[in-house]
């Protein structure tokens, strides 16, 4: 039985075994082992350059696996674009691109629509609803190039949500948001999990990790992986960040 068949039968959403991820010839993290189910939240914690984004890009199919096996929704990463959505760490802001917030959010439906299918009432309703969820509805007609960092983040997050994927790969979704914005993202993640979506979240913030199913501490290797209370031990956090969080 192949690795991918095993994934389907066990109802797992993401599996990785002995996975090495990196760029070109440079391996950033070796020997990652991971299994997720519907509704799981996996928090990837680590400093800059620890390998969080590299792992997310590999799961999104943007970087090939350097070694080992990885499967997302029973297929290779990147092969199910309608069912997996990825929010990059620094979504691009173009100074020339004439796109309003609602146009950027509507681009999240392109994976479903392909080249020719016309966007229907359902698509427009989804776009409107996701803009309401992230607050992007308040500046729906504002051009991307005139938005603040926080507004752009809300717009890109709405785009990712509008794909209505089964796996969400979020690279620091709260970057540039204030406390209320962060709380809104936490609510969104909880709501997505409640409808069975698997969320993999890269973050600097240990507070984001406490509600996770499992936490992976990264420092160019897997320092610890397990339930938050076990993985986030003082010793592990010190090894990962070089200091201990005050309790």
């Amino acid at each position, binding site marked *: 039985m192949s690795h991918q068949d095993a994934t389907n039968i066990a109802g797992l959403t993401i599996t990785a075994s002995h996975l090495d991820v990196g760029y070109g010839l440079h391996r950033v993290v070796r020997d990652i082992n991971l299994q997720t189910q519907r509704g799981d939240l996996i928090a990837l914690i680590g400093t800059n350059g620890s390998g969080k984004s590299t792992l997310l*890009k590999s799961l*999104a*199919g*943007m970087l090939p696996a350097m070694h080992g096996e990885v499967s997302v929704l029973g297929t290779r990463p*990147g092969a199910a*674009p*309608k069912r*997996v*959505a*990825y929010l*990059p760490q620094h*979504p*691009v802001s*173009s100074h*020339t*691109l*004439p*796109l*309003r917030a609602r*146009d*950027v959010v509507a*681009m999240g439906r*392109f*994976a479903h*629509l*392909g*080249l*020719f299918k016309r966007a229907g009432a359902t698509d427009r309703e989804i776009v409107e609803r996701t803009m*309401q*969820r*992230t*607050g992007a509805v*308040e500046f729906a*007609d504002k*051009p991307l*190039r*005139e*938005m*603040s960092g*926080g*507004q752009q983040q809300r717009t890109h997050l709405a785009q990712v949500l509008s794909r209505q994927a089964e796996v969400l790969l979020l690279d620091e979704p709260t970057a540039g*948001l*204030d*406390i*209320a*914005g962060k*709380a*809104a993202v936490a609510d969104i993640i909880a709501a997505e999990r409640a409808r069975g979506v698997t969320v993999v979240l890269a973050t600097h913030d240990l507070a984001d990790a406490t509600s996770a199913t499992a936490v992976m501490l990264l420092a160019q290797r897997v320092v610890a992986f397990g339930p938050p209370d076990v993985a986030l031990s003082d010793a592990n956090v010190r090894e990962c960040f070089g200091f201990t969080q005050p309790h």
Partner: protein
Amino acid sequence: MNLSFALADSLWGPFARNEFMQNALLASSLVAIICAIAGTYVVLRGLSFVGDALAHGVIPGIALALLFGIPGVVGAAVGALVMMGGVSVITTRVRLSADTAIGLLFVGMLSLGVIITSRSTSFVGDITRILFGELLGVTHADLAWQSVVLVLVAAIAFIAHRPFVLMSLDDGLARTSGFSVTFFHGLMLTMVAMAVVGSFQLVGTLLVLGLLVAPAATGALLARRVSTMMLVASVCGVMSSYVGLLTSYHFDVAAGASIVFTSVYLFVLVAVVTIPRRMRGASELPHQHEHGH
């Protein structure tokens, strides 16, 4: 009354009285729309330099075609293919910054074109025609050929609109949305090459970049949507064609260069006029408030 008649006559008379001016206006308007469509993505995806390289890459092809008596368009198409292949190999295989590599390829092709042309007995006439175009000798066959190119370029832009817009924002977004970036980038370059091959006879390989970039850049300043940007670019391009041809007729100056100059001048004008609006947008950025939900 006489004055307004004289004014109207000087604005439209040259076109009403001369078939070559009508053909030139029709051809340059077709080319302006072709370039507005392709140019929109050139500007959005930052391909100006690649566009320029493609425009010069066609020169050896045209020169060879002239030497052997083949239609220049065929030579240009072959030249564009070679250049696209070269750009693609260089940007993926060679460990040099892309602009250096493309710049070298561009100058290499340009000099090769000049060397080939220098073998011809009518060297100066040929090279001038290749570099600066020949707007006032447009034939019906040229118009038919430009109409075909317009249909093809518009078809590519229509079919690939979604991946092109995604790629303009971010290649990764296009890839994770299920579109092959390699394929659609190649298709975009093909579209730009078609625009170059369809336009060079009119404005010349040296100036075609102006029509690709200036109207689209003006569109980017004014539009809030990609489709509007393309429309504004087309209108600017056609307006520049008219103003440029009229200037050329009344003041007896080079037609192609007048059109391109008008389109660049129009961009500068719009850029200056819209400075206050853009400054306002920029100054708002650090103070934007965040609402929680």
